[in-house]
């Protein structure tokens, strides 16, 4: 861990004012990921700007019937908020699939969007990693890559995004509200995270001096037919090998709308509009879901140890969509895959 300056932002404008001129500065809220990375000398911020006291902890209804979630709402508060539990249970479920109760109590919504990959080479400063040190090379491509990306990879990085919450937000079509030196802007959650390309050091499209202030959920909440299924190496407290956020709109057994997002397979939550479009008007059957999974996984490619994830993802998509169809969402409390 390095020495750093510490500033407490008095308001959003103050946070931006402190952040913008200092490329080494980092915002800190719950710190559940940043502090870990600082302990490992992966993050060496020149300054920590504490935003944890900013008034960004509200969950309010938007005029169009959606919800606006302050960036500092703790993950637990979000998952157990009555409006989320009732109207966006997919999001609640995904959050509860992640981390542990203690971490969820500390972690903020904005921080969850900003969490960095769990690639072991990224964490180990004694090994090359393009994400940590651009140009040093990717150790995972020819190394230990059992839990690395199968979609959207590049020759410089095959890391995955570890968030569960983001996968549900991607499926729900969430928006991210951002404030910066040039005012506020809004981008789709699916455009918030980047693919690695040749700039794997950049996880997101957040500009310099910008700060997440809220996440907005659109009115369409898929509260009936949804499921979040996370497949991992133990039943809890592990990062996903593959996770699936699925949401359906059904008329009888016919699909009128479908959302499917994958976690643990790419540098960002993975959606395919083509796959979702292919489901519209179809009957909710395993065959159709399998076809959609194939479309979703189009272009998937494996490295030496992660080939199993392609078939696993395909099967998990079908299972999750069946859970959604039957309105029997995966429980995050039972010690069992439904």
């Amino acid at each position, binding site marked *: 861990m390095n020495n750093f300056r510490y500033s407490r932002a008095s308001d959003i404008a103050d946070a931006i004012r402190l952040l913008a001129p200092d490329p080494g500065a980092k915002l800190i809220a719950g710190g559940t990921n940043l502090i870990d990375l600082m302990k490992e000398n992966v993050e060496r911020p020149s300054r920590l700007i504490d935003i944890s006291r900013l008034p960004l902890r509200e969950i309010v209804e938007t005029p169009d019937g959606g919800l606006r979630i302050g960036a500092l709402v703790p993950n637990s508060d979000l998952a157990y908020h009555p409006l989320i539990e009732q109207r966006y249970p997919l999001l609640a479920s995904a959050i509860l699939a992640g981390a542990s109760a203690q971490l969820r109590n500390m972690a903020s919504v904005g921080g969850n969007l900003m969490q960095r990959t769990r690639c072991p080479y990224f964490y180990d400063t004694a090994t090359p990693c393009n994400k940590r040190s651009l140009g040093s090379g990717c*150790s995972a491509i020819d190394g230990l890559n059992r839990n690395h990306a199968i979609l959207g990879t590049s020759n410089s990085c095959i890391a995955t995004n570890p968030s569960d919450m983001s996968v549900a937000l991607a499926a729900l079509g969430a928006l991210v509200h951002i404030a910066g030196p040039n005012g506020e802007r809004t981008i789709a959650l699916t455009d918030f995270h980047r693919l690695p390309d040749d700039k794997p050091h950049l996880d997101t499209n957040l500009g310099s001096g910008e700060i997440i202030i809220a996440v907005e959920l659109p009115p369409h909440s898929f509260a009936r037919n949804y499921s979040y299924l996370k497949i991992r190496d*133990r*039943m809890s407290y592990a990062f996903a090998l593959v996770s699936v956020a699925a949401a359906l709109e059904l008329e009888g057994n016919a699909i009128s709308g479908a959302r499917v997002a994958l976690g643990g397979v790419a540098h960002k939550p993975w959606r395919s509009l083509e796959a979702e479009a292919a489901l519209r008007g179809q009957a909710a059957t395993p065959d159709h879901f399998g076809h959609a999974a194939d479309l979703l996984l189009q272009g998937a490619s494996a490295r030496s140890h992660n080939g199993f994830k392609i078939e696993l993802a395909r099967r998990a998509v079908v299972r999750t969509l069946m859970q959604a169809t039957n309105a029997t969402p995966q429980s995050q409390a039972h010690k069992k895959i439904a």
Partner: protein
Amino acid sequence: MNGYVGTPTSRVDGRAKVTGAAKYAGEFTADRLVHGFVVEATIPRGRIAQLDTSEALKVAGVLDVLTHANRPSLADKDDAWKDEVAPEGSPFRPLYDDTIKFNGQPIALVVAEEWATAKFAATLVRIDYEQAEFATDLEAERGGASEMDKPHKPRGDAAGALAAAALRHEADYLIPTEHHNPMELYATTTVWEGDGKLTVYDKTQGVQNVQKFLCGVFDKKPEDIRVLSPYVGGAFGSGLRPQYQVVLATLAALALKRSVRVVLTRQQMYGLGYRPMTIERVALGAKSDGTLDAVTHEAIAVTSRYEDFARNDTGWAEQLYSSPNSSFSHKLVHLDVSTPSDMRAPGAASGVCALECAMDELAVALNLDPIELRLKCYSDRDQSENLPYTSKQLRQCYARGAEAFGWGRRDPAPRSMRDGKELVGWGMATGVWEALQMPVAVRIVLTSNGHAEVSCAASDIGTGTYTIVAQVAADALGLPIENISVRLADSTLPQAPVEGGSWMAASSAHAVLGAAEDIRQELARHAQAMPSSPLAGVDAQDIILAEGTIAKAGERGRAISIADAMRYGKLERIEKQKLNEFPEDKSHARNTHSAVFAEVKVDEELGVIRVTRVVSAVAAGRILNTKTGRSQIMGGVVWGIGMALHEETVMDHRFGRIMNANIAEYHIPVNADVHDIDVIFVDEPDTHINKLGVKGLGEIGIVGVPAAIANAVYHATGKRIRRFPITLDKLLG
């Protein structure tokens, strides 16, 4: 003598532990205490070409950076570095010279007024290496394995019998490297007492082992160093040998003449010992009637280049399964890694896992029920020495375990049982461990108020030693357990070896018995000497201590209170110290046994495995405490679930570095992975092994569990996974 022994007595130290009153090595403090932070090597082999500490030393609050170049004197002979459980070889010496022997090796200690300052300054130490060629991959280097002494003599002609066998099963089973990950981090607080004298609070399984080691390494007299470890937050074998942080904290204390604390990080603990990755090759040859004609077991295990760490992986078949022909071999591959260490049931956890998977495969090939095969091959003698057992109720373990599990309802065909989307599998395996006894001395001080203090240098590593010592003492002295206080883990107390190998329960209990017997005799003498003593004329052997009195056995009316007898003898206190005595007896084999039954449910499409039920039926002589004993076995079962499904230290052999050195990525079972665990203690009276009939429970709980689960996975899926852990990717496709 009865009362507390054999009952579910709650831990006498339980309250101290849950309230935080129990202090651990890293929690002791001292005046002007300073903190050390370890800088580790990031290459597996080579030498330090340059080590620049100048930037670190500039940091305000940094007192010193100790390296091989500026450290105080350390012993230069291997003998001084050999602790009581060191393997053959030349032990690792931290900060000794510029040689790098393994990744994660400590190469500098930054000492500062504050821990955070030391940690920061550690990032400023610049090291240039001359890297040498290295090898860390056991499978790639398997051909370079060298044979150790034969653990067991061969019998008959195993190769010939195998070749001629009606049915043969032969396979490699791979046990990966595993790390202990005790909850408590390795820590030492070395208190500078002035004048070169040191009090060392260390996380260890053996304070006297550490004390002797430190005296050797730092050329100190025994009276100069006192080592204490009153509580240990889990160790599982990793604390048997003195770990490097105790050397570093003590080195710094001597260099600075100040008290120093060194706490390792979780990541740094992956540079300590571990269960060595081992290729277990088992071959079984059977006659068509299902009896064994040949057993061979070869283990090929990792060790460091500087020490030959080897345990008894092979040869357990000699104890379990009758076969006229057998041979065993243990090979080591020397790699650029730190030396492995004992980890719960060392050797057996790995070796019996392979043997019991192989027996399951043989049962399938013979179309026999796995229990039936084991009963057909049941050995009433330890074949290696051709000895009977002091007791062996393994048949009862099979019977009671099978009954509790419902084994009779098992359809033997793989993939024949299911529950919704899940395939159900039932598997079983045998467990075996040694029942060892070691020299331990105990001192009991009985005071006239009817209170006794029992003290011994033995550690309680969380297993319940405080409690069983109190139970045995309370019963032997006829006092309520509240009147017994127990002091452990101080090197100035009566002698004890490291706490390990499941030997401490029997060893410490019998030392308590010995000292209590001396007290009984002295009290009896005083009681009988009293005027008009109700015990006059009673044979001394018929006098017992019960309910605070000295009484005639079977005639409790004839009694004198302990207080009165001591008052009469003008005694404030009676102090007796005794070394336990076990008769030298090589006429019997001494072992504990278990039969483990596991139910798994495997999601047919997704490969997700759940261990939904485990029944462990254990025969381990007399159980001193059924509550802590049950916890021991449950803990072993949970660890066995981890060994079967989760645990694996993953190394990138291009860098020779462990890549999951943290407990987020190094998986052990969490609550969600643990379902029903049923522990059965089978009655096993053993009048031969020792007075109390105690055998010890530390290791037996894990042995057999991984194999029972692997066999259940086969039964569920029809897939035989021989590379552990069994992760879901191995079941897909």
